[in-house]
């Protein structure tokens, strides 16, 4: 089941004009705060009625301005995970979890209560009240509550933004399990590249209320022309499989002919691993550097160069099909004489790949 959105809406000076299709899996609306991501999600949820356009989930229309159709909030059957959890303070965790289930059609199958509480690690919290939960526990309860309402689509509006780094690392794996195990498409709002890199099946880049680009995460994130957050936060995502563990605490990853050494990833050999490589961590050398401490020296081909307005430039590099981004100065671009199609070497320190950038290590 896929979600199709085609809406226009004005809010004061801000105008939204967005068209996209979100396929099965996790589709991330990616952009700066204020770019219109939350407005889109609220329109899908039914919290906001757009001026024009239509929204449909599979072949079920949720909103159609021309037909004056606006399915009310409570009939849309979407699970909404809010940034601020929004648990009911007068109910226990168990009652919060059961709330949506009560209104869902009994005949329809959905994730079982036991399965969800087990998956989210909520078993020991069921008789507690929200006020006594930690931020991470609250957000996990909110995820379970949305999931148990047997939703046809899950909406998540920056569900990790209110949490500190440690809590984020606690929750992210649950979203990964949700993506891989639950049979529900997820529309996920984020302005954090690391979240996008780890979760997204498909990325919808939003800027100023417009959809700039849409496609697989590995393609969109490595495109120097997209960078919805600006070049400073740019970084590519590579999908690899774990090849083997080295005794000195490193893991070797493989993507096609590409080999990558990163700090240990606690996964079995053969497991899929996503790596987020920030553009500022990648150096470019014309010849293969000798006597250098960096462990990853990859032969690559320059695919594209985007000169910034300041001193920087973004260079897209192709490593046997895996796309990387390097942020270097315009001066270096000139000094190296970089041009499209050139064969160069990308240099990446193994330690610069942080644990948060690798899926499955939290």
């Amino acid at each position, binding site marked *: 089941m896929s979600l199709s959105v085609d809406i226009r809406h004005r809010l004061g000076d801000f105008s939204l004009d967005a068209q996209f299709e979100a396929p099965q899996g996790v589709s991330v609306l990616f952009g700066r705060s204020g770019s219109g991501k939350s407005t889109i999600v609220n329109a899908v949820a039914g919290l906001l009625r757009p001026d024009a356009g239509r929204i449909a989930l599979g072949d079920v229309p949720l909103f159609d301005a021309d037909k004056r159709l606006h399915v009310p909030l409570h009939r849309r059957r979407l699970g909404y995970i809010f940034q601020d959890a*929004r648990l009911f303070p*007068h109910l226990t965790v168990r009652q919060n979890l059961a709330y949506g289930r009560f209104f869902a059609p009994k005949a329809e199958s959905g994730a079982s209560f036991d399965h969800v509480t087990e998956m989210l690690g909520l078993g020991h919290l069921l008789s507690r009240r929200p*006020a006594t939960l930690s931020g991470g526990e609250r957000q996990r309860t909110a995820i379970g509550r949305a999931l148990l309402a047997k939703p046809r689509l899950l909406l998540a509006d920056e569900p990790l933004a209110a949490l500190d780094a440690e809590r984020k690392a606690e929750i992210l794996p649950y979203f990964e399990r949700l993506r891989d195990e639950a049979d529900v498409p997820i529309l996920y709002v984020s302005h954090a590249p690391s979240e996008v890199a780890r979760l997204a099946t498909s990325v919808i880049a939003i800027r100023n209320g417009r959809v700039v680009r849409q496609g697989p995460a590995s393609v969109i994130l490595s495109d120097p022309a997209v960078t919805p957050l600006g070049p400073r936060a740019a970084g590519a995502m590579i999908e690899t499989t774990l090849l083997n563990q080295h005794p000195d605490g490193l893991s070797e990853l493989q993507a096609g002919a590409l080999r990558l050494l990163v700090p240990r990833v606690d996964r079995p050999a053969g497991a899929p691993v996503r790596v987020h490589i920030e553009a500022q961590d990648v150096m470019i050398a014309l010849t293969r550097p000798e006597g250098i401490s960096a462990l990853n020296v990859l032969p690559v081909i320059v695919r594209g160069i985007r000169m910034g307005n300041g001193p920087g430039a973004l260079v897209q590099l192709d490593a046997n099909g895996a796309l990387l981004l390097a942020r270097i100065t315009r001066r270096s671009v000139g000094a190296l004489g970089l041009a499209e199609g050139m064969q160069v070497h990308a240099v990446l320190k193994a330690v610069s790949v942080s644990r948060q950038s690798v899926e499955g290590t939290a």
Partner: protein
Amino acid sequence: MQFLSPEEWQAVALSLRVALWATVLSLPPGIFVAFALARWEFPGKQLLNGLVHLPLILPPVVTGYLLLLTFGTRGPVGAPLAELGIVFAFRWTGAALAAAIMGFPLLVRAIRLSIEAVDPRLEQAAGTLGASRLWVFGTVTLPLILPGILAGAILAFAKAMGEFGATITFVSNIPGETRTLPSAIYAFLQVPGGEASALRLVAVSVVIAMAALLLSEVLSRRIAARVGGA
């Protein structure tokens, strides 16, 4: 118990009955009006707000007289109701009506404040989980405003127990029918040798008021513990 004479006991029982009915019957419209004032925008909102609060500012005698004009057996509302067999004038039901009207602003105020303190985003969340507006109100809003409803009800009950001016104007001071606690105290003070009776009724008033306060304190603490979870 011989503390109260039958006549005094009659006044106490009548007052309790009048105050209880006045409070219970004004709760549903009170919650509705409070919700409308807190959440909805509609033409005439300020007018409604003013009307609700009028009994608080008008002299009680004026309210009582207006009630008599409206709900008297020949009044525009009282006459048709009387044909249906519902009579307010000079009946204990009229005393309950007067008490309800006088307590209404206190009830609405307390409930309105508690509704305004409810985070609408919680109600939105309930909506996304499939709850219709009515269900949202019943399962989220209502439990969260319970302390406010309780506080308002206690205030209204206390007001009803003590209501004098509007009651005596609207339904007079008929022993056994409309002679409530305050009217009885007043009546006893008008006759020689009535002071002892008046004093006993004053003591009863104080006890009832204190009991109501204590009860509300205990209940609101219980509810707060349930709602706040801490």
